[in-house]
């Protein structure tokens, strides 16, 4: 019996393919994409102010409110600013670390280093931010304990805290693509540059940086995208500051269509970013 089923399947490769593809495609295309589509459609609906029910009529009211109200514009700009700062800080830390991992570390320790860097990446988001809350606590926190003797104080909760926390969270996302990119960089190029008389910084600026540019872009897509949608970090270490994600989260239960409208902003920004990035060819290193 088993033999004939196997033979039957063997003669029909298309059926095998369909069987393999059916469930995942159904899940991803119908369920996930469908949910995203439904969200987009909902962004155009409004809420009946008495009953709180959703009026399923196509209307641009939400978008109009969102674009004209200065409060929302501020939130968007602030979130963008945070996203850019976080991306830059991650890049500054990630490049030397990735360089060490790719070029200087011994091959045996390379694997361990990669595992070490990657492991906290997957460790709980919430725990990491909670850890920073303990670190940043004014006066009694860990940062004050370590840096106090030098005279630096913890910035407390607020904008700088958000930036520090988010940079910490996304750093491994930046390290990895740069590491992969540097691994592909032949050492002979660096040797040649040195032989031709370039000093370290010059080599870095003119040889390494242009070659890892696609990796930097790949990493920045994660840091950007994740920062744009974040709402938990601001709540825990952001003090009173609001980010885009917070606005979505707050509106989620009271005015779902409006929350959907706001949610389209990060998606739109990422879409534009992705389109700009396609032209630099960075998508290959994703």
């Amino acid at each position, binding site marked *: 019996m*088993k*033999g004939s089923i*196997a*033979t039957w*399947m*063997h003669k029909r490769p298309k059926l095998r393919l369909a069987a393999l*593809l059916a*469930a*995942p*495609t159904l*899940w*991803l*295309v119908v369920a*996930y*994409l*469908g*949910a*995203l589509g*439904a*969200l987009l459609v909902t962004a155009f609906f409004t809420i009946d102010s008495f009953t709180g029910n*959703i009026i399923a009529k196509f209307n641009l009211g939400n978008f109009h409110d969102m674009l004209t109200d200065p409060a929302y514009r501020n939130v968007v700009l602030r979130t963008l600013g945070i996203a850019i700062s976080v991306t830059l800080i991650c890049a500054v*830390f990630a490049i*030397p*670390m990735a360089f*060490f*991992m790719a070029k200087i570390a011994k091959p045996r320790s390379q694997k361990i280093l*990669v*595992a*070490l860097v*990657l*492991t*906290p990446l*997957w*460790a*709980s*988001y*919430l*725990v*990491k931010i*909670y*850890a*920073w809350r*303990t670190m940043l*606590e004014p006066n*009694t926190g*860990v940062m004050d*304990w370590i840096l106090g003797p030098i005279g630096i104080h913890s910035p407390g909760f607020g904008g700088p805290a958000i930036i520090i926390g988010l940079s910490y969270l996304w750093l491994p996302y930046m390290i*990895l693509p740069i590491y*992969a990119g540097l691994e592909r960089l032949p050492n002979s190029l660096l040797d040649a540059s040195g032989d031709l008389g370039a000093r370290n910084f010059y080599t870095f600026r003119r040889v390494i940086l242009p070659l890892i540019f696609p990796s930097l872009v*790949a990493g920045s*897509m994660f840091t950007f*995208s994740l920062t744009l*949608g974040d709402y938990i970090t601001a709540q825990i270490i952001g003090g009173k500051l609001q980010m885009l*994600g917070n606005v979505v*989260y707050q509106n*989620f239960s009271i005015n779902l269509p409006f929350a*959907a409208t706001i949610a389209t902003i*990060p998606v739109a920004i*990422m879409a534009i970013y992705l389109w700009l990035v396609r032209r630099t060819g960075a998508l290959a290193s*994703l």
Partner: protein
Amino acid sequence: MSLMGIGLAFIYVPLSVVVINSFNSSRTFSWPPSSFTTEWWSKAISNTGVRKALSWSLAAGFSATFIALLLGTSLAFAVSRYNFFGKDIISLLVVLPISLPGVVTGIALSNAFNQQLGLSTGLLTIVIGHATFCIVVVYNNALARLRRMGTSLQEASMDLGANGITTFRLITLPNLASALFAGGLLAFGLSFDEIVVTTFTAGPGIQTLPIWIYNNLFRPNQAPIVNVVAATLVVVSVIPIYLSQRLSQDSTSGGRF
């Protein structure tokens, strides 16, 4: 070299602070801890809220991992062994749940559950949310391994007379096993820690462990127990994930990129 050391320290210090703090005897967590105690750990274990949250997290984790293993592996087979219309689109689609901000995924799924499907929130909705991005993790691992494996062993086996099912059972599956194990570990870790999407898909009644932390974060009385739970999360997720990384060294990124 020292920069690397500082970098690694920077990465691990906050996590170790959480673990150390769970033993801190001071109720307000003043640092440095003046003395240590295991009082909080025993309180946490006997806390019913924590125990319930733990069982929800475990249930969701295993279910989501199971689904992700099934769907991710079959998708990996499809993509590595066949050419078909829309192949590139599928590859992009698989990464989407993890690259879009969690808040978008969360609100989209929640909207679909409530408005379109009339599904009430519960374990099912949590699992659907988790499985959606766990698929890509298993998929990446399986795909990398399948590509490395090639089809020659399979073909040899069939030349020697084994049919498709036997070949799969005796040849393909054993070779794939460690990649699947690594992917599964990673998927479990992701699901266990997940909070961003889960706050939208869990609804008011159910708490997974991260949601429990989130709800109790600002209650000063619960603070010591929150620390213990957080420390547990660190340990419970770090170990399987480190194992998973070491197991899947053939793809440098181990499954996300």
